[in-house]
């Protein structure tokens, strides 16, 4: 039986269930509007470790433990771990899962990693290759600044279009049975690059990819955007969100203001927290989904959402060589109850 519909979309035969979700968020995120939704808020982003990188791995490890505990399982029940982060060679996740001794697929999709992980995890379940799978993504503000921008103690100003990398980790356990919201469709994104080169405006670099994935998803599933209670992009921020709505309008797709949002906008209070265009990083969509949207889906407050983590796939080397920033976005359709 062919589970692929249209150009890029998978329709699951027996939609996998997200049986639990856990989130750990950093100090600044814990001062934002979503503070009461996270499982753990760090009081210190070093988390008692010797470096930001070690702290991120510790966060990954602990979030997985919480997610597995909430699912009523033990780590040995997990068939695969799908995870990724922003650090070089995925070390944040690798060292985070090192002690679990479970099969691990390290992923890199920049800030779209949560979508990539959930999509692949759901495919592993529906394909019959696994019973319980973990999907997660993490990032750390300090480690990212150090790797991609400037040392933390540099006294420079952040441009208005720039975003603030989220410190934290969001992890879900996806299973072939149990209760919870189900993943019905996955639309894997393709790389879209409209030539944006400004690494301080990643929302602009990713908006065309988000638009492409949304348009493709709706076409493949023959759905109207109104089908979804909410369309949630990953980390476009205010700038990218505005551009996405303009791009969708060019395609003849108009979505009500209250039915489309972005995790990077939800997670911070722009004026009080001085975060400029909003939040970004792998953990942006991951912690916002796990902490804020998952419980709403679980209780049925949201009937369904289209969750679209977005990623900017550049490196300091590619930017140094004058390359533009390729964008990607993966859409995950999640239903509170399947009819």
């Amino acid at each position, binding site marked *: 039986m062919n589970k692929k519909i249209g150009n890029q979309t998978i329709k699951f035969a027996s939609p996998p269930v997200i049986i639990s979700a856990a989130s750990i968020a950093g*100090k600044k995120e814990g001062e934002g509007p979503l503070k009461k939704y996270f499982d753990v808020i760090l009081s210190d*982003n*070093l988390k008692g470790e010797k470096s*930001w990188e070690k702290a991120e791995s510790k966060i990954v490890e602990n979030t997985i433990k919480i997610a597995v505990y909430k699912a009523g399982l033990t780590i040995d029940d997990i068939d695969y771990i799908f995870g990724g982060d922003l650090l070089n060679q995925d070390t944040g996740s690798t060292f985070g899962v090192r002690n679990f001794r479970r099969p691990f697929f390290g992923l890199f999709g920049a800030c779209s990693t949560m979508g990539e992980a959930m999509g692949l995890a759901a495919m592993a379940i529906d394909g019959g290759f696994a019973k319980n799978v973990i999907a997660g993504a993490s990032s750390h*503000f*300090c480690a990212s600044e*150090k790797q991609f921008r*400037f*040392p*933390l*103690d*540099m006294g*420079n*100003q952040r*441009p208005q279009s720039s975003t603030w990398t989220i410190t934290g980790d969001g992890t879900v356990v996806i299973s072939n049975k149990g209760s919870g919201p189900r993943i019905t469709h996955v639309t894997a994104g393709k790389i879209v690059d409209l030539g944006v080169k*400004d690494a*301080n405006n990643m929302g602009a670099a990713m908006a065309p990819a988000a638009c492409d994935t949304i348009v493709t998803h709706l076409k493949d599933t023959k759905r109207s955007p109104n089908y979804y209670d909410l369309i949630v992009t990953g980390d476009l921020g205010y700038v990218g969100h505005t551009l996405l709505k303009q791009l969708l309008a060019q395609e003849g797709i108009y979505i009500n203001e209250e039915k489309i949002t972005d995790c990077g906008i939800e997670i911070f209070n722009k004026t009080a927290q001085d975060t400029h265009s909003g939040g970004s990083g792998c953990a942006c969509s991951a912690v916002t989904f796990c902490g804020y949207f998952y419980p709403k889906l679980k209780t049925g407050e949201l009937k369904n959402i289209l969750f679209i983590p977005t990623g900017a796939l550049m490196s300091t080397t590619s930017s140094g060589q004058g390359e533009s920033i390729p964008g990607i976005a993966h859409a995950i359709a999640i239903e509170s109850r399947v009819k």
Partner: protein
Amino acid sequence: MSEILKAFWVGGFICLIGQLLIDKTKLTSGRILVLYVCIGAVLGSVGIYKIIADYAGAGATVPIIGFGHNLSKSVLKEVADKGFTGIFTGSLKAAAGGISATILFGFIAALVFNPKEK
């Protein structure tokens, strides 16, 4: 007193131009510093910066342009005194004090302090 006022407005003005560059062109701070040092070296070598420095005092020597001015001033002096070898010995001679102080204090600070999250 007017000496202080001169230092204030010239120094402030040089910083203001830097701020315009940051906001308008998105140049990173590292590039601003490079640009300023080179401008200082050029202005210094044609004698313009000396006029500014004589007028503004610290308003001209404290900004990084003054560092570039020092480099070229010292090269020209060494070339005048020693000839050909002055090309090679001049510039870092003027920068020696600043660079050595930065290395020393930077090293000590790195041993003492840890990075602070924002």
